[in-house]
């Protein structure tokens, strides 16, 4: 796996590293960190929803992101970006249902370890299937001409597509919040996060509900994958390179907490960006250090409930 898209560093001493220079670059960096943070939030929320329902940390969640990105790419090349954004979550939801019905269901009653293993295995199979179909190289599709320019925000020029992407993700996060807080399925998720046995007592429609919720969590990742691929490009490893920081997000924010995922995601995104300017060599390590500190001080995460770590 590549190191992920997040390492930056400088070497020479003759460079302009005055406070003024750093400050002039700060707004762009903060915006950049915010947008990357939003991607983490969206992925972490998908993990959280599925965890609430199935008590399962899904290593294949990154694969959903990658499938969404590739489906979006293929459809967008033929029919345009909007079609790609519609096709991707549908395709990923379909894949998730098949995956759940054929494979994952067998592992509901098994120990967490074998659940993690089977999702890890599926993640590899998906990654390698994508590699065989699309090749191992990075792909991206050009941003539609109307969105390809940059937008003057006053303090900085920023690519238009990235701004629209940020707005879209924020709306998506609001939708997820409403889903969890206002719908019956959301109630199941909330109940599941608090107490696993309560969900099992609900009986009846839990099987259907679990499939639906699993598919929703997956399509969330698929949609983000399709929307993000004009920005970050996509290769078969893309899923993992976003999944790992999202794990850190989940640990920092607290597994199972909506606001934990939001807070953790934005924190991780901004930490990386600010460190890029202030202490470039540490810009990758810093999120792991933050995670270690959180674990030492509050093992259940900033906004998590303590019961969770006994998952």
């Amino acid at each position, binding site marked *: 796996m*590549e*190191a992920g*898209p*997040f*390492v*930056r*560093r*400088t*070497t*020479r001493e*003759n*460079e*302009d*590293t005055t406070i003024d*220079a750093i400050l*002039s*670059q700060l707004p*762009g*960096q903060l*915006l*950049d960190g915010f*947008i*990357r943070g939003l991607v983490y939030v969206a992925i972490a929320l998908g993990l959280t929803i599925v965890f609430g329902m199935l008590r399962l940390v899904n290593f294949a969640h990154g694969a959903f992101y990658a499938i969404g990105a590739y489906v979006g790419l293929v459809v967008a090349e033929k029919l345009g970006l909007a079609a790609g954004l519609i096709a991707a979550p549908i395709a990923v939801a379909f894949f998730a249902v098949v995956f759940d019905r054929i494979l994952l269901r067998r592992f509901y009653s098994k120990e967490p370890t074998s659940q993690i293993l089977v999702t890890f295995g599926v993640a590899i199979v998906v990654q390698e299937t994508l*590699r065989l179909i699309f*090749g*191992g*190289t*990075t792909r*991206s599709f*050009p*941003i539609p001409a109307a969105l*390809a*320019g*940059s937008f003057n925000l006053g303090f*900085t*020029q*920023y*690519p238009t*597509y*990235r701004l629209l992407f940020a707005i879209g993700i924020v709306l998506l996060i609001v939708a997820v919040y409403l889903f969890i807080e206002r719908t019956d399925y959301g109630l199941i998720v909330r109940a599941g996060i608090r107490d696993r046995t309560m969900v099992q007592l609900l009986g009846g429609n839990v099987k259907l509900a679990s499939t639906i919720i699993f598919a929703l969590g997956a399509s969330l990742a698929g949609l983000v994958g399709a929307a993000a691929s004009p*920005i*970050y*490009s*996509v*290769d078969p490893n*893309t899923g993992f390179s976003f999944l790992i920081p999202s794990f850190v997000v989940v640990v920092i924010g607290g597994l199972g907490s909506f606001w934990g995922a939001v807070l953790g995601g934005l924190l991780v995104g901004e930490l990386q*960006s600010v460190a*890029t*300017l202030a202490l*470039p060599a540490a810009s990758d390590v810093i999120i792991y250090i933050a995670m270690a500190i959180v674990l030492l001080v509050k093992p259940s995460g900033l906004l998590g409930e303590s019961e969770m770590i006994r998952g």
Partner: protein
Amino acid sequence: MFNQAKPSRGQFVVGGAAGAAVAAFSSVNVIAAPMKKVVIGLDVPQTGPYSDQGQDQLRAYKLAIEEINAKGGVMGMQIEASVGDDQTKAPVAVENARRMIERDGAVMITGGSSSATAVAVSGLCQEKKTIFMATLTHSNATTDESCHYHTFRRYNNAYMSAHAMAKTLLTKYGTGKWFHITADYTWGHSVYESLTEVLEPKGAKTIKNVLLPLGTTDFSSALSQAQAAKPDVLVITEFGKDMVNAVNQAAQFGLTKSTKILVPLADEYMAKGAGDNFDNVVTTAPFYWQYHAAKYPAAKKFVDAFMKRYGAPPSNGAECAYTNIYQWKEGVERSGSLDPKKFIEKMEGHKFTATKEPEYWRASDHQGINSCLVLEGVPVKDRANPYAFAKVLEVHDGESVSIPAASSKCKIESA
């Protein structure tokens, strides 16, 4: 003639001797050919960021091998290729080379695309006393501080590109502000050091160097820093798909319009990926099919054969791959032996003409001394075909831009 070869090294494989299982599983899959064979290893990326370049080299290798085999092979031996995908990763490249040498009995390894893999394979080949004809590797290290007795590199290096670009551009941008985005491994470091070494004494100011690992896909952080810094020149020392992503994203930040973009090394695959964003970008290459085919008959013959076979002209990496196979063949034939030592003695200082002007192998560091082209990208509408991506600004004689032998850090092992 071959008695100095240890039997275990399998210097050549006699057909028919191999058992059925070997035929089924091993790459040296000899059925019943009565012909003697010599095995060489092609260690190139078929996946990873530099896979376009690796695949194009593979095409050229196969073309050269087929041509040679059709004309009777190397000293009567048919060339048999053992191929490995190095995934653009050094450990995989080394493992491939080890398998090619230890199991398949390869007497020569060739390949590259990433200097990290080339330098690593070069180290292994030195240990295994096996010839390594490095192909697409542009870091100085390959024939400078990490040079080895068994390694030859004909491709231009970072020092040559830096000096060629500097000579062409200094009058216009020499005293401006330069911002670097650099791939964080031996090649990137090598280009950055070479460029700043030439530019800074002339008054150029280096604002910043942002290092990003091989395989980076999101350049926005570095690009927004560049945007805020308002440099005169933005040097994007990235290669393959990474370079395509970086240049395309630079365009999103409006940098391709406001700033002179330099990409120290490029080929038609990268230019194609960058499309119109490659317009006006300055780069270098050791070979450009359009230029060389028009000037040298041997180049035209090669380009035509390649076009006929694959429907596209060869990239500069493919040209080097093709010439490397022929250089190895001629070296073996001139020394009359597969013995590496005798081969190397015949190669050092050897003057030859292949697809370019007359050139030679420098004895002191095994660097091929040949010309370096400075190119400038043209917009898609001005490209006669999708692969005619640039115009030639200037051609620099190899001698004039190479690391002077006296200041080379190469301490080659004694035979």
